[in-house]
């Protein structure tokens, strides 16, 4: 379980402080896969950084029981001057995982070939996403924080990543940010909508999607 107690988070923008979470208390349970919705700039990425522990809240506490992944997205987590292989090694070392096992899985899964020996700065964003997703699937996290990177690339790769994720979700949970309603419906049991500093949970993902769409239309 990831429990949030009176968590408050805001950050400064050009037009004053933007509140991401206003004194929020609640929990992400480990048997539930949660789809997170919110318009661009609502703070979904910041929420993930808070949940992972990469960033501290302004006030309040976040209690994590179990291992939480870093926010898996198109950026962050890799050092640009290091090669893919060196980045894999770095991540294995900090998480105390076997480099050889993870590497063989990632090479096979991400299928980016000789790019493994090139600096990450030469990668396309899709390749970075494949690498990040591959590494995280090789490590055993109890919670995966995934920001849009489940299904990138061609149809065959999409299928492969969905299969691997489904396998993982037998023992782990996912918190998924996605603009794809179909993907959310496929993997998530419940939904949360982040809107104007409030995070509201809904018992089904369909309901969350409906609320989110209503919010979108209201702001337009």
């Amino acid at each position: 379980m990831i429990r949030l107690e009176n968590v408050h988070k805001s950050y400064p923008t050009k037009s004053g402080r933007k509140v991401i979470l206003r004194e929020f208390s609640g929990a992400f349970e480990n048997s539930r896969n949660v789809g997170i919705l919110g318009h661009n700039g609502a703070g979904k990425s910041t929420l993930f950084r808070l949940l992972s522990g990469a960033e501290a809240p302004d006030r309040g506490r976040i209690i994590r029981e179990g291992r939480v992944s870093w926010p898996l997205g198109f950026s962050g987590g890799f050092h640009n001057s290091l090669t893919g292989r060196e980045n894999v090694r770095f991540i294995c070392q900090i998480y105390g995982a076997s480099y050889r096992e993870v590497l063989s899985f990632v090479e096979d899964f991400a299928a980016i070939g000789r790019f493994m020996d090139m600096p990450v700065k030469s990668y396309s964003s899709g390749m970075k996403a494949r690498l990040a997703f591959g590494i995280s699937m090789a490590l055993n996290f109890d919670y995966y924080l995934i920001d849009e990177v489940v299904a990138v690339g061609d149809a065959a790769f999409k299928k492969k990543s969905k299969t691997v994720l489904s396998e993982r979700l037998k023992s782990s949970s996912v918190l998924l940010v996605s603009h794809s309603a179909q993907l959310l419906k496929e993997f998530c049991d419940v939904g949360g909508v982040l809107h104007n500093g409030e995070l509201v949970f809904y018992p089904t993902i369909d309901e969350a999607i409906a609320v989110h769409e209503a919010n979108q239309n209201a702001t337009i």
Partner: protein
Amino acid sequence: MVNALSTCLRTIGALCRREMLTRFGKYRFGYIWAFIEPVLYIVAFAGVRSFVGSSSPFGENALLFFLIALLTFRTSMSIVRRTGGAIDANMPLLALPPVKTFDVVLARIVVEAVTWSVVSVAFVLGLWTVSGLWAIARPDVLLPGYLAALYLGASLGFLVAMLTKLVPFFDRFMALISLPLMVMSGIFYLPIAMPPQFLAVIWFNPFLHAVEWVRSGVFYTYEPVLSRGYLLWFATCCLFLGLLLNKLYQRRLYSTA
């Protein structure tokens, strides 16, 4: 608790490895450069001396007088400069929750301190081999002096790392003052023989005290301009100020946005 400590040690280990891989880009030329740089200074110094034809500022071996000071200064200053850029250079890795600003800074201190210690030892041994002179008269003075230089580099470097992140253009400022500081560290001249007005200014440069401390471990009869207390207090104040800033501005330092 034990778990947290082992995660922290693993992280620092991984960061040290990463620093060594990228210290000078992908050509891995950096380690050779660390040796070439002092050699270039020596060549320039020897060239100027043969041109001017002056005698050694102190003792018989001018090269020793100069080299020891240069290595001490470069050790300390390199740690400051490298550590100062630690957070910016590792921003993407701070997205990984186990990686904390403190680890990133510490890893750079360790790598730079080890690099320059090895370079310094190599040069002292090299000089010993070439000239046949055992350079160090009082290892019991030299060693604490060199450790004080490392301590100054680490503490000031930690503070600079915080300031670089919090104050715009602070890295430019550091780049600007590092040469004057080198000139004011008594590397090329005998500090005690300087005019009092000049001495009154350079006395406040902590690097001068580190250089003089190490030098007084090399020559038996050396008269240094040295306040060990000033050096150690200066470094300790930097360390505490750095820790304070790290605590106060934790959110701004951690934030990757």
